[in-house]
C-alpha cells in the first residue's frame, strides 16, 4: 500500500525535476565552469608554465640581447623578437591543463559517471578544452605583462598585444586537441604529461632565435612546415614592426589548420574511449 502512494509521488517529482534534453551550449558551459573551478583548486599546475616562460625570457634576453645587434632582420627590439617564443611556450604547456583535468576524471572514474548522464559527447570534450583556453589566455597575458614590465614597446599598442594573446589562445586551444587525445587514448596521467612535452622540441624547430631566412638546410624545411613558425612570425610583426595583414593571416591560418587536424584526432580518440564493447 505504502509503496503505491510513494510511487505516485515519485512520478510527480520526476515531471517537475527532469525536463527536456539540455541545450548543448548549456552543457558545454556547465562542464567548462566545473573544469575551471577545479583547475583553480589545484593552482600548483598553473604557475610552472608561466614561471618557466618568464625565466627563459629573462635568460634569452640576457645572453642573446647584446649579440642581437649582429642579427639582421629582427625589426625592432630583441625583447620584442624573443617574447613571442615565451608566449607560445607558455600557451603550449598551458594546453596540458585541459588534458590533465580530463585524465583525472578518467582515472577517478568520474568520466564514467558523466557518460551515464544524457550529456553530449562533444560537451565532454569541449568542457575541459574551453576551460584550458581561459587558463592559457591568462598565462599568455601574464607573460606579456612581464614583457611590458621589462620595457617592451609594442609597435601596434594595446590592440596589437590583444591580437598576440588571441593568437596564443588559438594556438594553445588547437594544441589542446592533441593533449586531450593523449588523455583519452592513454587514460593515464603520466603518459598524457609525456605526450604534452612534444611542444618543447616543436618550439625549437622554428625561427626561434633568428629570423627564418637565416635558418639552414633541414631545420629550415622543418620550420617551414611547423605551424608555430607562422604564429611566432605574426606575433613578432605585431610587436616589433606593425600591422601586417599577410603575416597575421598566415598565423591565424596555421592555428586553424593545426586545430582542425587535432580536433579530428580528439573526436576519434573520444569515439574509441566511449565505444561500448
Amino acid at each position, binding site marked *: 500500500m*505504502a*509503496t*503505491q502512494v*510513494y*510511487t505516485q509521488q*515519485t*512520478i510527480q*517529482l*520526476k515531471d*517537475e*525535476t*527532469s*525536463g*527536456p*534534453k*539540455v541545450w548543448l551550449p548549456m*552543457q558545454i558551459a*556547465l562542464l567548462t565552469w*566545473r573544469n575551471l*573551478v*577545479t583547475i583553480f*583548486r*589545484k593552482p600548483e599546475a598553473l604557475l610552472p608554465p608561466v614561471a618557466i616562460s618568464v625565466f627563459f625570457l629573462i635568460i634569452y634576453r640576457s645572453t642573446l640581447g647584446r649579440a642581437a645587434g649582429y642579427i639582421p632582420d629582427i625589426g625592432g627590439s630583441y625583447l620584442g623578437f624573443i617574447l613571442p617564443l615565451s608566449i607560445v611556450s607558455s600557451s603550449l604547456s598551458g594546453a596540458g591543463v585541459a588534458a590533465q583535468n580530463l585524465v*583525472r*576524471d578518467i582515472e*577517478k*572514474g*568520474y*568520466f*564514467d*559517471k*558523466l*557518460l*551515464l*548522464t*544524457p*550529456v553530449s559527447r562533444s560537451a565532454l570534450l569541449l568542457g575541459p578544452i574551453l576551460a584550458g583556453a581561459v587558463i592559457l589566455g591568462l598565462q599568455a597575458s601574464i607573460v606579456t605583462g612581464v614583457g611590458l614590465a621589462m620595457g617592451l614597446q609594442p609597435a601596434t599598442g594595446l590592440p596589437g598585444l590583444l591580437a598576440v594573446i588571441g593568437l596564443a589562445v588559438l594556438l594553445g586551444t588547437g594544441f589542446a586537441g592533441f593533449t586531450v587525445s593523449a588523455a583519452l587514448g592513454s587514460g593515464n596521467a603520466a603518459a598524457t604529461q609525456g605526450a604534452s612535452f612534444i611542444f618543447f622540441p616543436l618550439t625549437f624547430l622554428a625561427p626561434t632565435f633568428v629570423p627564418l631566412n637565416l635558418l639552414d638546410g633541414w631545420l629550415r624545411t622543418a620550420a617551414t612546415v611547423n605551424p608555430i613558425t607562422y604564429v611566432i612570425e605574426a606575433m613578432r610583426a605585431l610587436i616589433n614592426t606593425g600591422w601586417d595583414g599577410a603575416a597575421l593571416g598566415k598565423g591565424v591560418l596555421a592555428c586553424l589548420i593545426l586545430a582542425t587536424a587535432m580536433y579530428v584526432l580528439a573526436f576519434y580518440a573520444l569515439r574509441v574511449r566511449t565505444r*561500448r*564493447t
Partner: protein
Amino acid sequence: MSTREIVVENLTKYYPGDVRAVDGVNFTVKAGSIFGFLGPNGAGKSTTIKILTTLALPTSGSARVGGFDVVSQAREVRRIAGVALQDIGLDPLMKSVELLALQGQLFGMSRKAAVKRAHELLELVRLTDAVGRRVGTYSGGMRRRLDLALSLVHQPEILFLDEPTTGLDPASRRDVWEEVRRLNRELGMTIFLTTQYLEEADRLADVVAIINKGVIVAEGSPARLKAAVGTESINVAFDSHETAGRAGAVLADMAQRIQTDRDTLRLYMSQAAQAIPAVVSRLQQADLSPISLTLTQPTLDDVFLQVTGQRLQAQDAAQAA
C-alpha cells in the same frame, strides 16, 4: 513511465581468447523488488551490470531495462536507471553539493531545482555535515554514500548497485543496507544489486541469483534456496583440528555429509535436532569431549557450496579481515 522491470534473455558476453564472462544468463527482476546477484570475484556480476547500464554491449542475447532495450535504447535506459558502480566515480576536488547539482543540471533540472535536490539527497544519505568540504577529504563510507546519492539525482526508477558495500566497515555497511531498503520500500524503486557477501544477499534481496563462472547456478528467494538445500547441520567444536578429525571418523555413518572446518566438525543431516543425543553419546563412548555444540539452519553459503562445490564464506572472511 517505464515498466520498472528488468528482463534478461540468453545474455552472453565473450571476450577475445574465449573468455566467457557471461555465458547465457536468463532472469527477470519484478517491478519494485530487490534482486541480489551473488557470486565470487570474476563470476560475471560486474560485466552483467555494465551491460544492463549501457556501459558495455552484450555479445548476444537481449536485456530490457524498464522496457527499454539496452543496446538500441541506451539513452532511455540512462534516463530511468541510476547506477553506482563498484569503483566510485567522484571528483576529489569538488564539493558534494557541486557534484550533485551539476549532475542534476546535466539531467535537465534548473540550477535552483538541482541545488534543492542536492540538499535533499545529502540529507537522505546523512552527509549534511560535510557539505562545505571537498570530496577528497571524505572517508570511504562517506564517498560510497555520496556516490549512491549521485546515482539518485534524476529520480531513477531502477537502481543498479555494483557491490555497494565492498570495502566498507560493518557500521557503514549497515547504513547502506538501511538506505537500500528505504529506497525500495518508500519510493518503490526496483533494485538490482551485486554482492559477494552472503549476508547482504540474504538480508536485502527478495530474490537471489547465484552466478558462478558466467552461469546462473541457482535462483529463488533466500528462504526457498535454503529450503532446497534442506540440510540442517550440527556443529561440534573441539580443542583442535585433530580431535575434530577423530570425532569425524567416529560419527561418519550418522550424517549425510561431514565437513571439518578448522576445529569444528559439521554434520549435515535431516532432523538434526533429534540426532543430538546420539551424537553426544557416541562422542562420550569415544572419550572425545566437545567444547560446544550448536544447531544451524542452512545458509546461502550452503546453497553456494552445493551448487558450485566451493565455499564463498572463506572469501567473505578474508575480505572482512
